[in-house]
């Protein structure tokens, strides 16, 4: 709620019904408790009220001592009216109806009424309110205002000024929610218009949201422009898999093709917002490069084959239980697929060479900071970011890597005054609200972390073990500054700002740095010494799930470490290049573009005897493949995804897969079945049942429990790990 709410309850009367509401609650919210609705345009529950459109007019009175009601002579805007004792509200009186009609008539004076060609037509609040509350005919015979039509504000957002009713939702969104303040009102009166400053491009990581909150068709999606009308579309709930946050989305499709993505409300994850990467980043579903048919290399050519032939070829080329198979998987595969992938590699091919991590450095799963299932990496829930006193954002472009954490943190800053300290090597969005932004020399993260720890020790705020203290105190600030261009004063200022309850945010992208592991360890020491929650978040849609499900060379799904671990990503690629393993199974993603050392990947792909590429899109890796297995994209399958905070959310099949593509878990399940290692899996929920039995932290998960906000997995406690060792 945008309004300040206190716990004190007051009694108001709405349409002669007495109602207890918190004092100060906005009337537009209070009446919802009765199931009533006040028509609105400019009011948005997640933003501050401004009372610009006057659509929410209600009649207000106050109960007098003698029981009579004394009405105010004029109607009041319900969106800016806080509830108070003895208030009497009428939302349905003659006067209110007349006023609404009048307001709508004014709003429609300059509205072009080009609804048939407007992308908003059919789901337009102005259309709806006019239909319910407005006049049925127009008395306006003069010439309408004419303004810019279809002006591209950015690659994603198109502005139609004629349709704008100047509610200011978009302007307030960029100021209050996304914080980039890209939009502003220019001019006054009838010529007032929202636009970017000096008409430069609308550059925002969250620009797509203004399309959804615009109550008319003034801001429309350039990608969706004229592609469909709302009634042409079918929509189903889905999860965005473009980053690790697991935002809830509505997946709109037409004739089996993805058309657009809208935000779906999940208060625990994304509230109702989406980032542009999620909103506009699903076009690949309709790509020409989608794989549709299993292909087998015969001579120089890739020949389309049936699934049975492809399986035969795989099982013949890769003798079971030889331990000669390596498996690389990307984090966009569902939990079910990931689990069966490692199960298949371990049971059918007798190999522990399986990994999902593509970063330069990989923490061993016994390392206290590895992703998933350990007590040192707190994985603070996204919703908790509203509540901290201070936060340290370290070496992560938060708006890119964890967009929803960015929005929550900013919400915390605007509502609670969270002090945010940012250490970054590039311009970042957080600078707009951070109490302190420090730019260091790229690549010097480990020195920055040392400097932070040293400043923390010097200020007496951080407690660390003796040997770490000695090592850090031996360093001088001057020497640290010579590496990273950050002065002692900046470090001290940062440490001063970090107090109270707090959180340290970093991401797995740190591990891509040569000194990534060291940086993480120092940072964790600093964070734990301060008493902050330390977080090193995953980046892939299901990396968190992969870690917990044991898609790792050194740990099994049940959490038991392996005495003789298999090879990790670098090891697998090296072994493939040296022909120590004879087969490589790459699932989804393009290792050539993902791995930091492209040459290593190419060498491995060239030298491995038998390469199985399983994916949704044809890419460079597929060119090296002996067998290509087409896989269903996330929204084409049943499955679950574990997001960055360990929340398992369900994906239902939204659209049909292209051609013969199969779900990931089905492919692995069929290999398991063919080689006689498993009973058949008939559905994804059966796989989840098995996961729930095997993997400790998934114990509570069943498909029924994943309705609504999903299920937040517990962090594995240290006792789990101990009992597994025994």
């Amino acid at each position, binding site marked *: 709620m945008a309004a300040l709410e206190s716990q004190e309850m007051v009694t108001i009367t709405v349409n002669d019904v007495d109602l207890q509401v918190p004092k100060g609650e906005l009337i537009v919210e209070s009446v919802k408790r009765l199931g009533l609705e006040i028509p609105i345009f400019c009011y948005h529950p997640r933003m501050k009220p401004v009372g610009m459109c006057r659509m929410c007019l209600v009649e207000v009175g106050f109960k007098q001592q003698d029981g009579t009601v004394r009405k105010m002579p004029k109607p009041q805007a319900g969106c800016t009216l806080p509830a108070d004792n003895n208030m009497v509200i009428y939302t349905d009186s003659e006067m209110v109806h007349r006023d609404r009609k009048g307001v709508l008539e004014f709003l429609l004076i300059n509205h072009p009424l*080009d609804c*048939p*060609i407007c992308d908003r*037509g*059919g789901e337009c609040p102005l259309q709806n309110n006019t239909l319910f509350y407005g006049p049925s005919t127009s008395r306006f015979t003069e010439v309408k205002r004419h303004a810019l*039509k*279809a002006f591209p504000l950015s690659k994603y957002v198109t502005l139609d000024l004629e349709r704008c009713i100047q509610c200011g939702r978009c302007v307030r969104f960029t100021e209050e929610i996304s914080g980039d303040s890209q939009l502003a009102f220019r001019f006054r009166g009838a010529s007032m218009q929202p636009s970017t400053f000096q008409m430069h491009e609308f550059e925002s990581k969250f620009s797509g949201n203004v399309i959804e909150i615009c109550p008319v068709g003034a801001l429309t999606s350039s990608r969706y*422009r*004229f*592609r*469909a*009308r709302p*009634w*042409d579309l079918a929509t189903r709930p889905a999860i965005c898999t473009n980053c690790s946050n697991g935002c809830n989305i509505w997946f709109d499709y037409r*004739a089996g093709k993805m058309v657009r993505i809208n935000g779906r409300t999940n208060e625990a994850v994304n509230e109702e917002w989406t980032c542009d990467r999620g909103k506009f980043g699903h076009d690949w579903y309709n790509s020409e490069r989608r794989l549709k048919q299993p292909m087998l290399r015969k001579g120089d050519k890739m020949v389309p084959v049936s699934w049975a032939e492809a399986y035969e070829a795989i099982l013949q080329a890769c003798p079971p239980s030889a331990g000669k198979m390596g498996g690389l998987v990307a984090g966009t595969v569902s939990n079910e697929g990931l689990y069966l992938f490692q199960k298949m590699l371990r049971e059918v091919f007798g190999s522990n060479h399986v990994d999902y991590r593509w970063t330069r450095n990989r923490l061993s799963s016994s390392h206290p900071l590895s992703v998933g299932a350990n007590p040192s990496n707190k994985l603070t829930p996204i919703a908790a970011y509203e509540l901290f006193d201070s936060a340290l954002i370290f070496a992560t472009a938060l708006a890119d890597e964890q967009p929803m954490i960015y929005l929550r943190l900013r919400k915390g800053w605007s509502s609670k005054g969270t002090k945010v300290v940012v250490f970054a090597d590039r311009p970042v969005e957080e600078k707009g609200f951070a109490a302190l932004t420090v730019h260091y020399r790229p690549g010097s993260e480990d020195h920055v972390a040392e400097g932070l720890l040293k400043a923390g020790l010097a200020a007496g705020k951080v407690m660390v073990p003796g040997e770490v203290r000695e090592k850090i105190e031996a360093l001088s600030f001057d020497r640290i500054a010579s590496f990273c261009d950050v002065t002692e004063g900046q470090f001290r200022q940062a440490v001063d700002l970090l107090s109270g309850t707090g959180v340290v945010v970093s991401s797995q992208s740190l591990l891509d740095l040569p000194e990534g592991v060291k940086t993480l360890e120092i940072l964790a020491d600093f964070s734990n010494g301060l008493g902050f929650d330390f977080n090193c978040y995953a980046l892939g849609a299901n990396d968190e799930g992969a870690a917990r499900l044991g898609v790792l060379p050194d740990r099994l799904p049940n959490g038991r470490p392996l005495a003789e671990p298999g090879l990790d990503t670098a090891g697998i690629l090296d072994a493939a290049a040296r022909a120590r393993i004879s087969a490589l199974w790459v699932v989804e993603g393009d290792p050539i573009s993902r791995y930091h050392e492209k040459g290593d990947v190419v060498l491995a792909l060239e030298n491995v005897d038998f390469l199985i590429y399983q994916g949704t899109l044809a890419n460079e890796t597929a060119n090296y493949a002996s067998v290509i297995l087409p896989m269903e994209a996330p929204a084409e399958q049943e499955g679950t995804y574990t997001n960055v905070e360990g929340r398992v959310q369900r994906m239902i099949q939204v659209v049909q897969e292209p051609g013969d593509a199969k779900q990931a878990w089905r492919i692995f399940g069929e290999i398991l079945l063919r080689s006689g290692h498993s009973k058949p899996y008939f559905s994804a929920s059966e796989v989840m049942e098995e996961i729930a039995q095997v993997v400790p932290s998934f114990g509570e998960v069943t498909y029924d429990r994943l309705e609504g906000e999903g299920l937040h997995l517990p962090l594995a406690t240290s006792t789990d790990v101990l009992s597994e060792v025994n």
Partner: protein
Amino acid sequence: MGLLKDVVKPILGGMTLTARRAANLGKNIVTIQYPDEMREQYQRSRWRHYLTRYDSGLERCIGCSLCAGACPARCIYVEAAENTDTERYSPGERYAVRYEINMIRCIFCGYCQDACPTGAIVLRKDFELANYKREQFIYTKEMLLEKYPGQNLEPYRSKVTGVEAPIYTG
């Protein structure tokens, strides 16, 4: 038990009718020689759809899909695209790049015509819609669209009256 009543009387009755018709041979004929002849249809009969043009030659259809939304049989598929200055199909920003009607599904209710904000889609009296293959019942935009404004696309009508059909102008 009446042989007379049950057998002879009906035969006589029937033969009388035949004799009466035979006496009137050549007068008051109700059957016509379709397809050589065609009956004038009622004023508001609704058959085959056409997409009309403005007098300027621009298409009326703006691809708004309201017809598809109104269609109770869900037999209309519209795909819109944007006009450019070099390639202009309709006035305004938007035109239909694909417009298809599945004539097997269509129930000829005329709701599309009612819903159309520009009077682009009209149902005229061309009722001879039989065909051999299912695919041939998918009427594409090329089949539906007039070649020029006011083009006479109703062969039956000129056979009946010799005059071209009036163009519905919304």
